[in-house]
């Protein structure tokens, strides 16, 4: 992303629009909004060079609350809107805000293609494992068996794992955070913004009206140290209240081990967010609480790769260099011509 230095130093409140925020009281979206407002001033990109693009959903109301340019588009299509925008205006900082339904159900294909093209945009998926705006149907991330308005006998679709998909689609930056883990969330959003290429961030978000407590295991003060694992580049995978547990690799399978009793940090899996091979990131994305693993949060993968927005404009420059800036007269007169007197 090309970042310009703003002349004035902005405050979080400068990024608040004049619209009333209309999420349900207690919704996790508030916290994400607050962190976003905190992070943006630190990036040095002026407000007018920042654009938020969303689809439809509670989460997708986000752009209205930001004093930047914004498009609240149609359900599932935000990544495509962002693609058009970023192609012609690579100088803008573009954020895509989406939900688990918007991004993974109706919009799955656009998400996949935006990620693989590695356009320099930042995609934040608010995962509340439910359709909030339409009042409580299950979503692609709802667990098997979940009873919702549309699944009175329980959901029967295997849930999708957003990060696994992203990694399956050639993602160059993949991260996860939690709405209430505010410092961590801020840090992750900042990293996403700074990554040159498509950044994909999943945020565990609580919908306290239709799916309250879906992430309690990862948020609860008592359990979160055991159920989540903060990834750090180059560091071993350690977690637990006393940082007493770790993840070791057994062949291709991760396993939870207790440190001490002959097991040292060196035996553990070390995180390498810059690994060119995405298999480690993929493996990390498979670790689920329900299978007895802590769920990693932080940056899973961050590698440099050519950006679509740069390449598409690069071809223009190259064409101009090779063939000269297009000349309408010459274009019209190309091929065989004849004159009628």
């Amino acid at each position, binding site marked *: 992303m090309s970042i310009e230095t703003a002349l004035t130093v902005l405050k979080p409140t400068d990024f608040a629009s004049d619209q009333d925020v209309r999420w349900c009281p207690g919704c996790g979206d508030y916290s994400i909004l607050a962190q976003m407002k905190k992070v943006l001033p630190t990036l040095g990109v002026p407000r007018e060079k920042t654009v938020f693009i969303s689809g439809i959903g509670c989460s997708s109301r986000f752009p*209205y609350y930001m004093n930047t340019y*914004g*498009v609240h588009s*149609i359900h599932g299509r935000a990544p495509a809107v962002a693609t*058009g925008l970023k192609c012609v205006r690579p100088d803008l900082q573009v954020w895509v805000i989406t939900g688990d339904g918007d991004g993974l159900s109706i919009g799955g294909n656009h998400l996949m293609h935006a990620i693989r093209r590695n356009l320099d945009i930042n995609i934040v998926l608010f995962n509340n494992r439910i359709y909030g705006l339409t009042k409580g149907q299950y979503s692609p991330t709802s667990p098997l068996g979940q009873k919702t308005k549309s699944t009175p006998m329980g959901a029967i679709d295997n849930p999708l794992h957003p990060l696994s998909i992203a990694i399956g689609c050639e993602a160059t930056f993949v991260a996860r955070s939690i709405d209430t883990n505010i410092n961590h969330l801020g840090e992750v959003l900042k990293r996403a913004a700074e990554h040159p290429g498509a950044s994909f961030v999943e945020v565990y978000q609580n919908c306290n009206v239709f799916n309250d407590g879906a992430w309690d295991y990862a948020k609860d003060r008592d359990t979160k140290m055991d159920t989540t694992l903060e990834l750090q580049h180059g560091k071993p995978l350690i977690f637990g209240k006393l940082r007493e547990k770790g993840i070791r690799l057994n062949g291709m399978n991760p396993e939870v081990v207790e440190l001490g009793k002959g097991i040292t940090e060196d035996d553990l899996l070390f995180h390498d967010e810059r690994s060119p091979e995405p298999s480690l990131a993929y493996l990390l994305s498979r670790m689920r609480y329900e299978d007895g693993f802590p769920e990693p949060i932080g940056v899973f993968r961050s590698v440099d790769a050519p950006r679509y927005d740069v390449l598409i404009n690069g071809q223009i420059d190259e064409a*101009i260099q090779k063939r000269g800036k297009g000349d309408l007269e010459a274009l019209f007169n190309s091929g*065989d011509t004849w004159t009628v007197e």
Partner: protein
Amino acid sequence: MATITPVKPIAPLDDATVRFCGDSGDGMQLAGTQFTNTSALAGNDVATFPDFPAEIRAPRGTKAGVSGFQVHFSSHDIYTPGDTVDALVAMNPAALVTNLEDLRDGGVLIINKDAFDKKGLEQAGYKTNPLEDGSLDHYSMHAVEMTKLNRLAVEGFGLTQKEADLCRNFFAMGLVFWLYDRSLEPTLRFIAQKFGKRPEVAEANTASLRAGYNYGETVEAMNTQYQVAPAKLPPGKYRNIMGNTALAYGLIAAARLSGKRLFLGAYPITPASDILHELASHKNFDVLTFQAEDEIAAITSTIGAAFAGEMAVTASSGPGIALKAEGMGLAVMTELPMLIISVQRGGPSTGLPTKTEQADLFQAMYGRNGECPIPVIAARGPADCFDAAQEAWRIATRFMTPVILLTDGYIANGSEPWRIPELSALRRTEITHPTGTENGDPFLPYQRNERLARPWAVPGTPGLMHRIGGLEKQDVTGNVSYDPLNHEHMVHTRAKKVALIADDVPPQEVDGPESGDLLVVSWGGTYGACATAVHKVQQRGGSVAHCHLRYLNPLPKNLGDILKSYQQVLVPELNLGQLRTLLRATYLVDCIGHNKVQGKPFSVGELVEKIDGMLSVK
């Protein structure tokens, strides 16, 4: 072969129509294109009609695999590729059986005799060999051993037999060039340019071309040569151009003349793909082509590029346009300028992908949820696509609205001479973007000017940050609003804005008397056939006029009066009567339809017949 023979008689003609047909692999499109260019360079007016087989290549020699290219060239203005064919080149039995009915009685029939073997005849469904059973007696038939003669001609260039046979179309071309007294020069230049890197191929093709020409000059059986004099086209510099190319040029010109980058978001689909291909090859004009993952991404990326402040375009055909419906709704709600190009093909559903039709007018008018008006304009021929594209962009930016531009498969792939415009004669579209507000006033993204257009504030401009989207907007502020009266106001405003365009375009013109017995109303690609038919009847003194609509939404302001000035109104369409329905609903005039839904254009003859019928009934 090159013995000296006496010069044969040359018969002057007003115009002539030639069709090359053969297997998809026989290079008939190339033959047709070369013949067209040569005729155009010779100063004729030309009109072409390529007819591809359906997308998949059928087995060689079958009827499904036949590919044809028709050229009409003339010493006067023409608008159609011709109803009947004066000279037919058939490279195999399947081509003959599927094309013969269009050859006029006594027409020239050139046949590759070598292809009429047992297998070929069987594949075409012939029980007996038509070259031998007398069924072709009423044509001026020339059965030429083309395969054999061509192989002999290219002997010595070191080609494989397969490669040698690939030159056969040049032999056929040569023969036809001789028949119509055409220069070989342009094609020789083409060969040199195209095959420059493979000299043996270039030499072989040259040899084939000359061999065919010489065959015509030499062989006793071919005893007349024809000549079509140059047409009296308006003075200027000309080139031949295909509809999709002209459209692409129009877009490039519009972008350049309005100071914009050009963004095309598109997903390939026949017959619109060539717009993508053409634009992709002109990146040095600051043209960005984005092959999207689907048509929905194509239009929504277009919306993104429009919001970003550039010239944004999407192009597709029937099923692809259907997928854009929801996106078009967003485009209307956000009141951003952009173009949606719909190159119509045979429908419904996947339909007849390579055939032409005009059945997507309703879709353009109504194919969305809610009251969702979009201006619709239609190009009338290949060269006109250039102008139509620019006019569409002019409307889009002046009124801050998406605009639908309709063309069709016939226009898209057809070609005609195009008078190359002077740059200075092209209309520049002035666009102003707001740069700030006064005294720190809040920016009002839905405040309107006299055309009801809102300001186009582009990201990057300090102080104009605003948010748009698909929920109903409060007028002036652009904030989300659920207020009942505001909604009604906005529905009316969007409708009125489109209606106002009628004040901004020239009044509708009529070709012919200002009142009379019959008015023919047409739109889009049927222009040529309708104009020609009306002219023919006018020349015979028939009281008929022609009104060809470029603007379909809104309809021209004076159209109601025009319609009421004639006793009868005929609306010929390649659909079941879509414009007719609009006219009836709008003006309560009992228009009569002449409708054809066969995947092919009108013939002039059938329209003349229809017009004559209506005039005589009266």
